[in-house]
């Protein structure tokens, strides 16, 4: 039994326990402890000296089709597994207390929820541990179906979205299978190493086919353009903490597989050699531009949402673009930024979802037009969301700033100003929409019906606060995460970023310790002035008047719908839902063909077809 065996075993046990005890009062806590155990097993695997970590094999292996299937962990898997288990731990914790009871009382199947969550973690670990292309595909499919399970839990509308997800995901998986089997046909093995050795001898056409098939397969899970339509709604309809978990890590599995196969095995340098005929672009540029558009378009779609969960979920799609962009650029800064963004994003996205779920838990709605002023009622949730959106918008002093800085910097170093501008436009949209989020929920006027709302229970607040701490600490000391990303960079064969605890040690580098310290000093000074200046006075929100009338609680003077009217007027014409139309067109094409085929079976005289076949054979004979 190796460390990896222990990890997988504990994870499998977690699934079983979750399914057995999920409905009990202690069930959630038990499962949470098991996640913590998984985390311990993961840490045991490498100690904290991860940078020297070598490959950990699992003793589990099979021989199928004269191919050996094996599982193993390297630094890349370890890094993603850390995030996965962390997300599982916090989400399970979050779900264990009052939330779970309420879910069960509302007719939800809590046992199935915990089981599905644990199954998601387990399948992701299996995927991360894959040691060859066959196990990669098996893990991939397991993850897809586990996500499908948790997405469909809510029933009703969630069924429709989960259905859409699985249609996309399965089509993607088939593209992936096609790609992997094509590799097998070319290389004669599912082994990673054989593929790596065979890549230089492959023809350009084969390579293009491979890259397109694999990117499409992985891209569906990442929800990059043009496969982005399924994700936001499916995630938003997943029950509370499940959405937080999926939003934090699930679609990152696509990125993991992309890194393993396209970056590590095929290699970015090979992509650069693949030029697109009649243009000055190559495959790498193509991917980078896909990434940039994946940043921009979903972010501005998010701006339009008025459901908090959907707004966040659409951001999830957009942020994937940053990660992909950084990794495709593939220099030391970019890949470190992309990888670090995976970690950072997971931490604040989980927290943001939790904050929104906490609000739903107390108020029963996530409609941004029906909320407001909850700051006074739920200050801790407010704090969590504030820290989260600072991170999401990529502003100092939170960790999101560091990873985005690295990605921007890499674009400048790489000499791609257009990509840089695209990424910045995306960030602009992010800032605008996260402001909409926090404003419409927490700021402004408190609604009458929410006057009695209390802060979320401790079981929900503590995970949020812990995540907030993570976001802040890794923003203060980015070196903590950069250590891990360097190990990953070494393991996948990319240039390693020189760094220290406070940031990057290259010329024009970044030292977050300085920046944050200065910021803190500045804030401290400001606070000091604010409180010691003594010129402020607390007034009740309604101690006010407008147009000569005193305000009552029933009067709405804080309008949250029709946000950003000017901006919307300006960019409104761009929301054409072209991709929706594309999707719909595809469906009606299939529908038409399908009708034709049914008509064929229903109406056609069989002998006609037979004779078509005969004539076909005849032409053969003559030719």
């Amino acid at each position, binding site marked *: 039994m190796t460390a990896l065996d222990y990890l997988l075993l504990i994870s499998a046990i977690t699934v079983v326990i979750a399914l057995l005890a999920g409905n009990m009062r202690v069930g959630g806590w038990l499962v949470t402890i098991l996640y913590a155990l998984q985390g311990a097993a993961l840490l045991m695997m490498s100690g904290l000296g991860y940078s020297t970590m070598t490959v950990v094999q699992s003793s589990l292996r099979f021989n199928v089709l004269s191919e050996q299937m094996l599982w193993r962990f390297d630094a890349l898997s370890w890094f993603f597994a850390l995030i996965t288990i962390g997300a599982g731990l916090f989400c399970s914790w979050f779900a264990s207390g009052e939330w779970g009871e309420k879910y069960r009382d509302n007719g939800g199947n809590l046992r199935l929820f915990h089981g599905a969550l644990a199954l998601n973690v387990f399948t992701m670990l299996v995927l991360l541990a894959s040691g060859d292309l066959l196990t990669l595909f098996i893990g991939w499919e397991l993850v897809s179906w586990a996500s499908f399970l948790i997405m469909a839990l809510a029933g009703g509308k969630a069924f429709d979205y989960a259905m859409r997800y699985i249609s996309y995901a399965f089509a993607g998986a088939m593209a992936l299978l096609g790609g992997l089997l094509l590799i097998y046909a070319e290389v004669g093995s599912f082994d990673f190493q054989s593929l790596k050795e065979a890549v230089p001898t492959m023809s350009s056409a084969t390579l293009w086919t491979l890259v397109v098939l694999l990117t499409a397969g992985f891209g569906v899970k990442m929800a990059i353009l043009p496969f982005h339509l399924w994700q936001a709604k499916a995630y938003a309809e997943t029950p509370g903490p499940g959405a937080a978990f999926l939003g934090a890590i699930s679609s990152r599995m696509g990125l993991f597989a992309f890194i393993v196969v396209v970056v590590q095995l095929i290699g970015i340098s090979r992509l650069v050699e693949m030029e697109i005929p009649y243009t000055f672009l190559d495959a790498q540029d193509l991917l980078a531009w896909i990434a940039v558009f994946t940043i921009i378009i979903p972010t501005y779609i998010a701006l339009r949402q008025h459901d908090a969960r959907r707004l966040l979920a659409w951001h999830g799609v957009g942020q994937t673009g940053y990660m992909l962009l950084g990794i495709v650029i593939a220099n030391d800064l970019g890949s470190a930024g992309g990888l670090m963004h995976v970690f950072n994003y997971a931490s604040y996205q989980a927290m943001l979802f939790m904050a929104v779920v906490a609000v739903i838990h107390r108020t029963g709605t996530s409609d941004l037009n029906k909320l407001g002023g909850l700051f006074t009622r739920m200050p801790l949730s407010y704090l969590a969301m504030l820290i989260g959106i600072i991170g999401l918008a990529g502003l100092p002093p939170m960790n999101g700033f560091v990873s985005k800085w690295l990605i921007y910097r890499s674009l400048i170093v790489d000499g791609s100003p257009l990509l840089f501008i695209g990424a910045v436009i995306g960030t602009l949209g992010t800032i605008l929409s996260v402001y909409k989020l926090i404003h419409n929920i927490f700021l402004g006027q408190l609604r009458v019906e929410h006057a009695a709302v209390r802060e979320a229970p401790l079981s929900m607040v503590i995970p949020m606060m812990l995540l907030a701490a993570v976001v802040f600490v890794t923003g203060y000391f980015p070196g903590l995460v950069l250590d891990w990303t360097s190990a990953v960079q070494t393991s996948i064969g990319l240039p390693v970023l020189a760094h220290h605890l406070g940031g990057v040690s290259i010329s024009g580098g970044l030292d977050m310790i300085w920046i944050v310290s200065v910021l803190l000093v500045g804030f401290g000074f400001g606070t000091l002035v604010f409180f010691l200046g003594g010129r402020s006075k607390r007034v009740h929100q309604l101690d006010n008047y407008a147009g000569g009338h005193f305000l009552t609680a029933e009067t709405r003077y804080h309008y949250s719908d029709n946000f950003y009217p000017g901006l919307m007027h300006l960019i409104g014409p761009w929301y054409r839902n072209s991709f929706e139309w594309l999707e719909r067109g595809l469906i009606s094409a299939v529908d038409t063909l399908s009708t034709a085929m049914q008509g064929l079976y229903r109406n056609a005289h069989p002998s006609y077809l037979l004779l078509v076949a005969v*004539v076909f*054979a005849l032409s053969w004979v003559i030719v």
Partner: protein
Amino acid sequence: MRRFTAALFLLGLGVMIAAIYQHIDFSNTAVNAGQAINAVAAEETGAANFVTSVVLAYRGIDTLLELTILFTAAMIGGMVLGRRRVDAPRDPDAGFILRTGADLLFPLLLVVGLYIILHGHLTPGGGFQGGVILAAAFFLPLLARPGITLIDQRVVSLVEGLAGATFIIIGLLAMFDGKEFLTPLLDKGELGALISAGTLPILYLAVGIKVGSELAGLLAHLAEAEALD
């Protein structure tokens, strides 16, 4: 349009058949399994009619299956058409000449049918041809007098079942003897004599009775069909 496409297809089919016909090689015809059978059949089976040898001995299992097809078809025919209702109206009897003719023909056809069956291993004819005549013998009176129940479906099914079973049991007897299923048994006798060729005449008798009863049953079913519903 439909006719036009059909004509086009047929033209294509015709051309294809012509093309295939061009490639048929007629020189092979002397070398085949049949000639091999001709060389040894008289000795191996003792039947003067080699077609009978092939039908009952060399390819006996085919014949068994063929009987089974008839059996199944008769059974399904009965199932599909259903049983005659007791109170259903009947056709009036046919005229005097037909009735008398049918009465006279009945024994004649019976004798001819049995003759053809029993000489199947010597002369052209056999169980199938004779069976058809037997069926006609039993069906003719029905045409003449639709009221009579000469053909009782239950008797028919009993007879056909037993005749088929006889065929199989003769085959199984060979297995008790340590030989393969349907190996011809008994003494082969003198070539050309009525009692010769071992079990083949018995098999042909079973075939004839089975074919006769099944076809008679089918005919009766079809004739009675309108009485349903």
